[in-house]
């Protein structure tokens, strides 16, 4: 029996993706492990591998189609000896992707309920997400609202009985009054399937170009909005004297030059943050509704600017890695991030983040927390500043670092202890290599 190849869920949060490129064509024979296509998700471009062997009998979704829902048949694979033409006429090959997206019919309407003139937008049951396994606990109303606003329920924490997601968790306004779509749910949260009507035409007389949002941009918009709306941020800033750290870096790099390793200040700061989090475990946490998750390992997400957006590859267990190892890993991750080739596990997770804008000469800034993490360290430029040392005004290399903390999970005093630990590790940097 020919096999339908379906749009894979390449990450836990993926609901749809862009079929960027087919690497096979109809009639090609493939074997397990062959790369069939490149699929762009909200975070990265990933390769879709064949699991079974056979012949590509038909390609159902042409390359370049975006908004292809997870689970949508995208191609048909005929097994050995099978007549590729015996493929069930799934859909005319030329059908545009949008039509395809509808192909997997939802559960049949409830008996007798089919004629309900009501709620045309609401199928009898919300389409269950592929492969997530766990049932999401949510009230019927929360499901409806999430669907209407394009909110992924799995990204929410429920405050209802037994962790059930209720209306309030969707950040719905008190009255829940249905406002015109644009006002209530502007682009960041919404941006549902492109098949849907355009969000709201933006009108301006100023000469301009309208650029369609990439999946990554939509995700950034949604997550940052969620973070700023849901997490009460508290910001704590310290000035860090870098002279000792810069000196140590020079010495280490001189010693490591033969091994082709060159440590950056950032590599050392990753280590310093990781060690600080272990020293002040109150800040190495996630706020999860009615529980607090306390991590016993520091996985540092490092913000990397890439074309068209930003991604945060993770140095897992940075607290126990040598700075040289961090440096090497960071180089590899950043390189692949820029090519859009990171695997989901390489950028999803992390217990805290580090964002460094020093190279742009930014003196100091406050970063937005990357949920479900509870802190992010924002690093400004290291620069020579007048500095009081031993009661006299001298010149020193100073860097301002600002931690943003989720105040639901972290008290100000604990945040301050983390900043103190970080400052001390940077100013007495032998602790980083010990």
């Amino acid at each position, binding site marked *: 029996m020919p096999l339908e190849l379906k749009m894979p869920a390449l990450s836990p949060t993926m609901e749809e993706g862009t079929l960027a490129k087919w690497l096979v064509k109809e009639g090609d024979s493939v074997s397990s492990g062959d790369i069939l296509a490149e699929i762009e998700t909200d975070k990265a471009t990933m390769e879709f591998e064949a699991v079974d062997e056979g012949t590509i009998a038909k390609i159902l979704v042409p390359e370049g189609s975006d908004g292809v829902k997870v689970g949508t048949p995208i191609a048909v694979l005929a097994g050995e000896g099978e007549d590729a033409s015996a493929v069930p006429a799934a859909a005319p090959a030329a059908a545009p992707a949008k039509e395809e997206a509808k192909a997997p019919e939802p559960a049949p309407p409830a008996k007798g309920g089919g004629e*309900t*003139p*009501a*709620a045309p937008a609401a199928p009898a049951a919300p389409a269950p997400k592929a492969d997530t396994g766990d049932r999401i606990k949510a009230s019927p109303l929360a499901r*409806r609202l999430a669907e209407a606003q394009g909110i992924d329920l799995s990204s929410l924490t429920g405050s209802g009985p037994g962790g059930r997601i209720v209306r309030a968790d969707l950040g719905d306004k008190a009255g*829940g009054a249905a406002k015109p779509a644009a006002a209530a749910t502007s682009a960041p949260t919404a941006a549902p399937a492109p098949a849907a009507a355009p969000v709201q035409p933006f009108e301006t007389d100023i000469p301009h170009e309208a650029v369609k949002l990439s999946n990554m941009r939509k995700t950034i918009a949604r997550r940052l909005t969620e973070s700023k709306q849901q997490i009460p941020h508290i910001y704590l800033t310290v000035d860090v004297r870098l002279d000792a750290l810069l000196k140590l870096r020079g010495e280490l790099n001189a010693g490591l030059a033969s091994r082709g390793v060159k440590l950056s200040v950032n590599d050392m700061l990753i280590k310093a943050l990781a060690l600080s989090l272990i020293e002040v475990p109150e800040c190495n946490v996630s706020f999860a509704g009615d529980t607090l998750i306390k991590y016993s390992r520091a996985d540092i997400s490092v913000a990397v600017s890439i074309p068209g957006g930003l991604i945060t590859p993770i140095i897992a267990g940075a607290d126990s890695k040598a700075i040289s190892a961090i440096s090497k890993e960071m180089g590899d991750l950043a390189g692949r991030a820029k090519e859009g080739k990171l695997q989901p596990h390489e950028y999803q997770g992390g217990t805290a983040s580090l964002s460094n804008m020093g190279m742009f000469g930014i003196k100091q800034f406050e970063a937005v927390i990357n949920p479900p993490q509870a802190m992010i360290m924002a690093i400004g430029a290291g620069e020579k500043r007048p500095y009081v040392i031993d009661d006299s005004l001298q010149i020193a290399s100073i860097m301002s670092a600002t931690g943003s903390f989720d105040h639901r999970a972290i008290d100000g005093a604990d945040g301050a202890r983390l900043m103190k630990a970080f400052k001390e590790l940077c100013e007495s940097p032998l602790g980083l290599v010990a």
Partner: protein
Amino acid sequence: MADAYDLIVLGSGPGGYVAAIRASQLGLKTAIVERESLGGICLNWGCIPTKALLRSAEVLHNMKHADAYGLSASEPKADLAKVVARSRGVAKQLNQGVTGLMKKNKIAVHMGVGEITAPGKMKVTGADGKAAELSARHIIVATGARARELPFAKADGERVWTYRHAMTPKEMPTELLVIGSGAIGIEFASFYNDLGAKVTVVEMLDRIVPVEDSEISAQLAKSLTKQGMTLLTGAGVESLSSDGKGVAAKIKTADGKVAEQRFSHCIVAVGIVPNTENIGLEKLGIKTTKGHIDTDAMCRTNVAGISAIGDVTAPPWLAHKASHEGIIAVEAIAQALGNKDVHPHAMDVRNIPGCTYCHPQVASVGLTEAKAKEAGHEVKVGKFPFIGNGKAIALGEVEGFIKTVFDAKTGELLGAHMIGAEVTELIQGYTVGKQAELVETDFINTVYPHPTLSEMMHESVLAAYGRVLHI
């Protein structure tokens, strides 16, 4: 040495005594302070004894209509003294019930007038004038409210009554003036009307039971008028004077004319005022709005260690709201004291039902159709009449209807509005649905037992979605 508690509850109405029981369940050492009778107004002078009175009126009403059921009852008459005695007996039974509950839960009862002297400190002055000092880590103010009086119509208990006098009449009013058509006014109007008084209701707004959906007001006005009541809406009482024989009221009617009318008695039911005086609130700087104490979602006031619940706080002023707040307040306190197993949950006022026990009964939850539209909802409205329901016909209760208001986009039940027999017992079905955030499909897919009045709840939802079966 002052008695030291974890919690002192000031006031033992349905808010206070429920809070005390919950506190005891959670292991808090709890005291309750009451100046009059355990159970408060609700149980002694409000909800419960009025239901006893209204039940007598209902039985009388049914006896008078016995013929319609193929029965005969010779000249049914009300013996007012016995009707009142029954009502007092019911209140007494429940009052003793609360006393038993306090004992069972090991709650210390201090009878006397309580005053908060400082956060965590309360002075209780007993009837004998002796004062005791109590202390606690937390205090809940649950002092309730009393009837609002009209400046020109001081209730004297002789001819001019508040609800409290109306509950224990010494004589049967012949011509009764009821000022105010909220739940309390309409219930007494209905009771005395059933007992044979000639009742006139004066309401300032343009319809009776003005908080209800306008279709409910219209249906109730129709039913009460049919029962012989005079309803003056858009009208006001300009002045009132009473003498030994009755009261004379100058009533300005909707057309602007002022005329004096005489009545045997008058009931003033124009709302409530919170009991916030002489309990130490001003000294502590506790914030209020229009006299009612401001609280947050966990019933905490602006002063640490002091919470407030029930009628002394913001509306709706209903016993079940007070009880629920009592639970929330206590659980929040227990949590603050370190109990990790409680998860207090803020109440949503849109999910608090309201009931009026006139004849026919009125019950509702959530937004009226007008309020829903005002809030920007696109609505779907369903209505189903009692006359289309088999059980209602068998009961001989064919007056009334059930109306449901849904959000057309989300299927959320925004409001439900009922008038007719036993609707106060039905509203809970919709309330559970609202609390659980069910949508129209859930109500439609639920199986309703036959033959019951609850089938109308199904039909009303079906009607909202163009699928009504029995009309």
